[in-house]
């Protein structure tokens, strides 16, 4: 039982013994689910975790573990009902007091928090040198919490990032960087602190954002005050006004921006805790897609930033974004706009662009880092090396988790837990596997050409892993594209390096029925790409994948007929409309579109595909789309400019009494111009006329609307090559190709961007332009 909640309880349920006992039972009930929630949802173990949390002196007997929730559920419903009755009899608690802080008991362990702290207050004790790891006899614990890192060196994210966070924390608390050894004297520390109000950590889930903050705070001796979206305890209760989560948040912020003065005045004994600096940690954000909520969230952040005193404490916001691997069918348009909630969305423009805020972006963890972290967890979790799963298994888990350490550890725990029953049978083979792991294992592909026994094991292993990590063993994009582009079929030359197992499986498939004569053109050899397993592993959404395919597939065709056939398929898939109005197209249509684009291309690509070191490039589409939007806003500006000019002239004409001479001087046309006409006719011609006459007709912004001079070959080949650099598990063959020479003589090296020539064009254009003076008064 958490002391803080206990104390608050006491204050609310004053003297009645009866009610205090029911409240105790009730908190037991609600603490169990809350506890479970916290352990499932966050890889944010508190660092001072006690291995086997013993019921502390004042905790109720059943609070020890979540496993007890099922057993206690029956009595608790009873007590809850009773509690509700009690509540009706009792006056509602004073508004400032929340009767039930959602506290996970293990978090607020042995600190004596007294007084009136109502919210989730997690105080890490500064010990840190206790023995941290327990024997894993307690399997109900999540390993992510049990074996959280205890020193900075153990943190999984990159050193530079951790250092950044550390510096920020230090600066925001003490006014100077942690790299400076001694605090500079006679310096106003508030000068820096004033502008270090909010640290915004973003990145995919499971990259150690929260863990980093917690650990650093611990080492710096900082008190963390955390605000999490509480589980609504009163949802069934009647009669008591519910405070909206937003107003709770606002009051939380305003209360905790300052050190608790009341506490120090009343409670002289707890002075030591008061001297500790504090930070506010936000991990669960309110529902920002609701606009009023978002606005009030932004405004409370802004107030937080603006009201600085030397006593106020900084805030750290941890925000997991969807991440690149998310298979959510978000549209490319959305993503282009920053469809995942960006910092703008969360913080609001005023805060983000203000001086108070710093953003640090966490990246998905590289498999090597994951591997290291997993091994560390394993070492702590399973003391005997023989009991541990093999290196290869760990590697496989690391690879399949897409940089999400939390999910990797969870998979590992599941795997080890599940193995206990079969361990007796398998231990031996595991060990042999372990020895050979380094050399023969090819991640995920199973051992190639290994002996029967070994193959057996790896299959076993894979079966388990499949069950554990089934969710997404997604291929990386590179690999997925390669599968399509290389269009490998049974009977291709150079099949030696193929996976024998796969070949076998495909050979064993029943032969296709021969096609009738008039359909002969559609007969193909059996494809090595197994569509059904392949489709779910595509790492991006259908629409983006189509763009990637479209960008590079002509390179893999021999004849233009093949390109034409492939493009037809992509077009048909596009008509299913997979992006801009997702809410209208069904999920079926989306998956059909993906099937159609993949199968269609496999059908139309030649077999075997000519290998001439083709390169996979990023779709130009995105760049072009961005440009188009820029240009269309430039066009808006031009339209506005011309309209304004027309209106001014028209008024001058009307004032001039409608004389024809005036009209000829001014060229009166006070009307709006159709944008299509503007883009297609007016602007290009006006540019020409302007260039010839040195009269200014257009505003400066029209400059981008000019086409660059035509050249027969692709001039602006700003194609960014997709490299295997940051994707270490790409097919080697692919890597070799990507790194190899350009087989096509005519193509300029994609690395050599055509920046120079485009710049030159711009310069030339600039000469043609005279900056219109009018432009100033237009804005």
């Amino acid at each position: 039982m958490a002391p803080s909640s206990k104390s608050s309880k006491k204050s609310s349920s004053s003297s009645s013994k009866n009610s205090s006992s029911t409240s105790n039972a009730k908190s037991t009930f609600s603490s169990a689910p809350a506890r479970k929630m916290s352990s499932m949802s966050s890889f944010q173990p508190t660092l001072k975790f006690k291995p086997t949390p013993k019921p502390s002196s004042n905790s109720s007997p059943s609070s020890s573990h979540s496993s007890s929730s099922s057993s206690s559920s029956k009595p608790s419903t009873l007590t809850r009902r009773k509690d509700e009755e009690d509540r009706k009899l009792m006056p509602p608690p004073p508004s400032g007091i929340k009767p039930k802080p959602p506290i996970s008991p293990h978090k607020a362990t042995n600190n004596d928090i007294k007084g009136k702290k109502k919210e989730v207050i997690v105080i890490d004790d500064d010990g840190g040198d206790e023995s941290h790891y327990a024997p894993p006899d307690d399997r109900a614990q999540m390993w992510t919490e049990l074996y959280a890192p205890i020193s900075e060196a153990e943190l999984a994210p990159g050193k530079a990032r951790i250092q950044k966070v550390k510096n920020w924390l230090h600066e925001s608390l003490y006014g100077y960087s942690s790299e400076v050894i001694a605090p500079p004297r006679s310096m106003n520390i508030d000068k820096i602190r004033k502008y270090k109000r909010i640290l915004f950590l973003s990145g995919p889930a499971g990259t150690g954002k929260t863990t980093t903050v917690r650990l650093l705070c611990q080492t710096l001796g900082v008190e963390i005050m955390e605000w999490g979206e509480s589980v609504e305890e009163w949802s069934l209760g009647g009669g008591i006004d519910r405070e909206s989560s937003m107003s709770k948040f606002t009051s939380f912020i305003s209360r905790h921006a300052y050190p608790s003065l009341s506490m120090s005045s009343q409670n002289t004994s707890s002075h030591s805790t008061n001297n500790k600096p504090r930070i506010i940690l936000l991990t669960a954000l309110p529902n920002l897609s609701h606009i009023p909520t978002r606005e009030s969230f932004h405004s409370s952040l802004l107030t937080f930033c603006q009201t600085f005193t030397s006593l106020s404490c900084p805030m750290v916001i941890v925000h997991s974004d969807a991440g690149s691997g998310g298979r959510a069918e978000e549209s490319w348009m959305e993503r282009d706009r920053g469809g995942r909630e960006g910092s703008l969305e969360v913080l609001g423009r005023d805060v983000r662009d203000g001086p108070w805020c710093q953003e640090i972006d966490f990246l998905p963890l590289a498999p090597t880092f994951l591997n290291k972290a997993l091994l560390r967890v394993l070492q702590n979790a399973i003391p005997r090396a023989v009991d541990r799963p093999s290196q290869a298994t760990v590697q496989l888990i690391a690879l399949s988790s897409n940089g999400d350490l939390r999910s990797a550890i969870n998979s590992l725990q599941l795997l080890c837990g599940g193995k206990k029953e079969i361990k007796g049978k398998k231990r031996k083979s595991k060990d042999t596997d372990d020895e050979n792991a380094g050399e023969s294992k090819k991640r995920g592909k199973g051992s190639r050409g290994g002996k029967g026994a070994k193959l057996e094991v790896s299959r076993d292993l894979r079966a388990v892993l499949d069950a554990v990590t089934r969710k997404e063993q997604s291929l990386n994009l590179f690999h997925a594209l390669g599968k399509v582009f290389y269009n490998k079929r049974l009977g291709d030359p150079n099949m030696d390096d193929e996976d024998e197992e796969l070949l076998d499986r495909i050979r064993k498939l029943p032969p296709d029925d021969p096609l009738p004569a008039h359909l002969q053109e559609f007969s193909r050899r059996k494809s090595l790409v197994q569509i059904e397993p392949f489709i779910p592993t595509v790492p991006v959404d259908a629409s983006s994948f189509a763009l990637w395919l479209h960008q590079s597939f002509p390179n893999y065709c021999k004849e233009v007929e093949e390109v034409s056939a492939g493009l037809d398929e992509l077009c048909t898939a596009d008509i299913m409309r997979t992006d801009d109005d997702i809410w209208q197209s069904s999920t079926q249509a989306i998956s059909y579109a993906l099937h159609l684009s993949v199968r269609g291309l496999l059908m139309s690509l030649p077999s075997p595909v000519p290998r001439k070191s083709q390169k996979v490039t990023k779709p130009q589409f995105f760049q072009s789309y961005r440009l188009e939007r820029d240009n269309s806003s430039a066009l808006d500006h031009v339209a506005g400019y011309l309209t304004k000019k027309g209106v001014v002239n028209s008024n001058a004409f009307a004032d001039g009494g409608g004389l024809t001479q005036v009209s000829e001087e001014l060229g009166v046309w006070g009307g709006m111009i159709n944008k299509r006409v503007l883009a297609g006719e007016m602007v290009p011609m006006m540019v020409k006329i302007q260039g010839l006459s040195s009269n200014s007709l257009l505003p400066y912004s029209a400059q981008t609307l000019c086409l660059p001079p035509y050249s027969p070959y692709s001039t602006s080949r700003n194609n960014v090559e997709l490299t295997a650099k940051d994707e270490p598990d790409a097919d080697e063959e692919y890597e070799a190709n990507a790194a190899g020479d350009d087989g096509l003589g005519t193509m300029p090296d994609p690395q050599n961007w055509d920046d120079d020539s485009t710049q030159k064009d711009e310069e030339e254009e600039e000469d043609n332009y005279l900056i219109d003076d009018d432009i100033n008064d237009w804005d």
Partner: protein
Amino acid sequence: MSLWVDKYRPRSLDELHYHPELSSRLRSLAASGDFPHILFYGPSGAGKKTRIMATLRELYGPGVEKLRIDQRVFVTPSNRKLDVNVVQSNYHIELTPSDVGMYDRVVIQDILKEIAQTQQVDLNAKQRFKVVIINEADALTRDAQAALRRTMEKYMNNMRLILCANSTSKIIAPIRSRCLLVRVAAPTDDEMTKVLQHVAKKERFQLPSTATKSILSTSQGNLRKALLVFEAMKMQKPDLTGDIEVAKPDWETYCSKIADSIIQEQSAQRLLDVRAKIYELLSHCIPPTVVLKTISDRIVDKVDDALKPQIIHWAAYYELRMRMGSKKIFHIEAFIAKVMTVYKQFNMIGYTEDYE
């Protein structure tokens, strides 16, 4: 300085150079006092807007030329703010609701309600109603058109609508039936020549017939384009004699060069080169349908007669698909690949397969 297009734009119905019967009908409509909702439609550059403005002048006198620009802010039900520029005088208001895309209904409803619910305040005004000009009416969404339809009947007392569109085909039938349809046809070559001569006379120079001819052939019934080309040519070569290169918009040159390169070589590599060009065009806001049409026109100019119908067929086929789909580049490129295929086959075997 201003463009000839603006400078010599007729300002009253009397000054219009062509379609005299249309002008007289508009004049009598304006005089009758019973002015209906009107839908002006016709190809680009035929003089729709000029006629609308001239009609307004006929209705209200020169007061309609006292204009002002407003930026209106509309709020959608989802709390999105939309900025729309409107041009208005005391008697009329002009706007392009389709600029805001799918939110045009909000703009239409708000503006029309506002206009319709305020009476004409100017006691000297010749008419009791105000006029709302809606540009690009054929680009309005179905929703917006439906909203328009209700307001049209409800507020007939205080307001008249003038819609301006390229074709009536995308305007829903209820609106068509509530409007007087006025078709402004593109001027004939003779009429265009007359206008060009008029401008030349005003600018005090002689227009040689060779120049007229080349202007007419590039502009294809689009008077605005003709005047722009004319002015550019005059700047290039003040005497307008001899062989002058017709000044065309850059993107047209682009398209014809793309067509050339398609005919030159049919290969996957060439297609990729062409793709870069098309991206270039699209990113400069040239509408994809226009790109596809222009390229197919240029190709048709250059290929054997036997191939022409087939190319037109595929152009139509892919344009339809482009309108249904969302990634325009796929469809334009598929068209080009198809043309390449057809052209290549034709060159190899001398005839084409049945494409139906």
